[in-house]
């Protein structure tokens, strides 16, 4: 039976565990830690109490697959509209870093119709094998079919690590694959590292809206699966020296029928690039006061070749569609530069943009919390600052 226990003799009553517990499940009674029923056995306190080792979790695990039978790394070669998604070189980049320690084969799974022309590009990033199913029956968006085929390939090829994109597609597909394989899956990782001794994948990701980071292991099950957050990993570069790789056609695997029929894809024609993909994002909030003032934001975004984001306040006021909302109930973005204009920096907004490389805040209130996370800030009226930025960027 699984349990969490405080070893009373070892507990010094320091309270570090209380600070570490995300669920307010620990209190001190007579200077000893006591764990209540809110505990989810997440293990944060065990980590916090490393020094005294006064908290232990005992666990039994259901037997996983034969771990030793699995070898190598595989990545999902996601594609849309006949092109590899921009996340693919990023996942390959992350995989190649792991490969340095693991020293095993790196493969990619490519499933779809008329996809063969992408295999060469995948190989050029340094991939050894492309496991491919190219079949006219497979639609880009039929992820139930993709899930089934990807599972079959993984069962046959048995990689010890399988990575996908933290994209809409990846985050929908991989949980289904993991549930079929009865293995673990860590969502939206921002850091991946091989433990050089145990040869286990250390998967680190933000939780609680980016307020805490957790490192997660999948010890007894294979493959170790993770989705990777967009724009965090360094993308692999195409090798000019003609990296050798081969295409393995897995065309004997049965293609199931999709239960979901695609009627149409509607591209949103608003504002240049989509925010998940953009290197530069200019976001507007309630400080804009009026929907027509989003023009200012658009102009700056255009001058930078970036995309337009928004706070929830702006979306709720119907100034801009929800697809632009950044934050806990919107999208998580990771651009090189995030410019927040007239956004106060509520914790839910920060949850979606805090990991941007550089945050620039423009706000007329010097005490706005956005300045606490901003790398650069201008205290001033956005109606003056934003046009001036456009002018100087264009003029420079």
């Amino acid at each position, binding site marked *: 039976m699984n349990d969490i226990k405080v070893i009373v003799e070892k507990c010094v009553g320091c309270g570090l565990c209380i600070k570490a517990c995300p669920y307010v499940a620990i209190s001190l009674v007579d200077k000893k830690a006591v764990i209540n029923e809110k505990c989810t056995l997440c*293990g944060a306190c065990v980590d916090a109490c490393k020094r005294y080792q006064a908290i232990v979790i005992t666990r039994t695990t259901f*037997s996983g697959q034969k771990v030793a039978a699995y070898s190598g790394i595989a990545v999902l070669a996601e594609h849309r509209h006949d092109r590899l998604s921009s996340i693919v070189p990023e996942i390959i980049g992350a995989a190649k870093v792991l490969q340095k320690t693991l020293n095993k084969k790196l493969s990619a799974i490519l499933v779809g119709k008329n996809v063969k022309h992408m295999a060469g590009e995948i190989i050029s990033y340094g991939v050894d094998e492309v496991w491919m199913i190219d079949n006219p029956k497979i639609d880009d968006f039929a992820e139930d079919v993709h899930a089934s085929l990807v599972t079959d390939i993984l069962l046959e090829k048995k990689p010890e690590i399988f990575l996908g994109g933290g994209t809409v597609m990846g985050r929908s597909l991989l*949980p289904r694959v993991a549930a079929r394989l*009865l293995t673990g899956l860590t969502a939206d990782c921002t850091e991946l590292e091989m433990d050089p001794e145990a040869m286990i994948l250390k998967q680190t990701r933000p939780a609680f*809206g980016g307020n805490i980071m957790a490192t997660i292991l999948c010890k007894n099950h294979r493959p170790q699966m993770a989705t990777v957050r967009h724009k965090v990993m360094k993308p692999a570069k195409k090798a000019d020296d003609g990296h050798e790789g081969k295409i393995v056609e897995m065309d004997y695997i049965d293609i199931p029928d999709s239960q979901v029929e695609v009627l149409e894809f509607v591209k949103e024609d608003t504002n240049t690039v989509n925010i998940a993909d953009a290197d530069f994002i200019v976001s507007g909030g309630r400080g804009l006061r009026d929907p027509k003032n989003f023009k200012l934001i658009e102009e700056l975004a255009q001058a*930078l070749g970036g995309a337009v984001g928004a706070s929830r306040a702006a979306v709720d006021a119907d100034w801009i569609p929800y697809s632009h909302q950044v934050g806990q109930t919107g999208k998580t973005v990771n651009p090189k530069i995030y410019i927040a204009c007239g956004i106060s920096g509520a914790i*839910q907004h920060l949850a979606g943009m805090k990991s941007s490389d550089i945050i620039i805040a423009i706000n007329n209130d010097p005490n706005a919390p956005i300045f606490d996370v901003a790398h650069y800030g201008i205290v001033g009226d956005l109606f003056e600052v934003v046009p001036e930025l456009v002018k100087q960027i264009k003029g420079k």
Partner: protein
Amino acid sequence: MKIIVCIKQVPDTTNVKINPETNTLVREGVESIINPFDMYAIEEAVRLKEKYEGTVTALSMGPPQVESALRESVSLGVDEIYLLSDRAFAGADTLATAYTLAAGINNLEGADVVLMGKQAIDGDTGQVGPGVAENLGLPHITDVRKIEEIDGNGYMTVQRLLEDGYVRLKVKLPAVLTVVKEINEPRMPSLKGKMRAKSKEMKVWTAADLDIDKERIGLSGSPTWVTKIFTPPKPKGGKIFQGETRDTVSELLDELVKGGIPIKRGGGK
């Protein structure tokens, strides 16, 4: 039509503040709320019921105090509430959670539509919805921003949000959907609803009540182990410019250029 909505109780991160000295979360007075995305799932379930007739059942897995979240859902229009609660469920990762919720749904003899939130704001994974669907052998659609209609043959047409637009999809029910905020605007609880919420009977099921493999629930059924939790490093103090607009802007741009940031001049791609 039978609709099941899966809801999770989570700590309200609105009230979570960072202690600037220790850089840790301040959790005093943090309340538990229904996961915000699940509020949209509840509202959509109630709207489906109002449009196509049927019942809405809310299902949750968690400790006993989740009762308050389930009762709140009644005040918002949910008809029946079920809680899967057992110490043996504790420590479940998304795989074990999806397995357990699916067992609960099977115990309820399934549904025409299972609605869930896009993701829970504590774990932020979004993996439970597709996992439940896989366990039930049903199709799923994530990030649903609109249910257009359910036709007479039991096909549902929905719009699903993607990075660069949306896609219209048609799926034969039963199916599992996860919803985003755009789908609706949740109503406030009615007075009558609040009264009903107080008196509503809540059914609690333990592991023994479900048709499940005990090895696949809770911590034992969870392949992923959290080994370390830490607070992310804060940005190292920003540079704030104040003064004449023209000066602050040029100081900022100079600073960016000095930092090697590729400001593209002359406009869009």
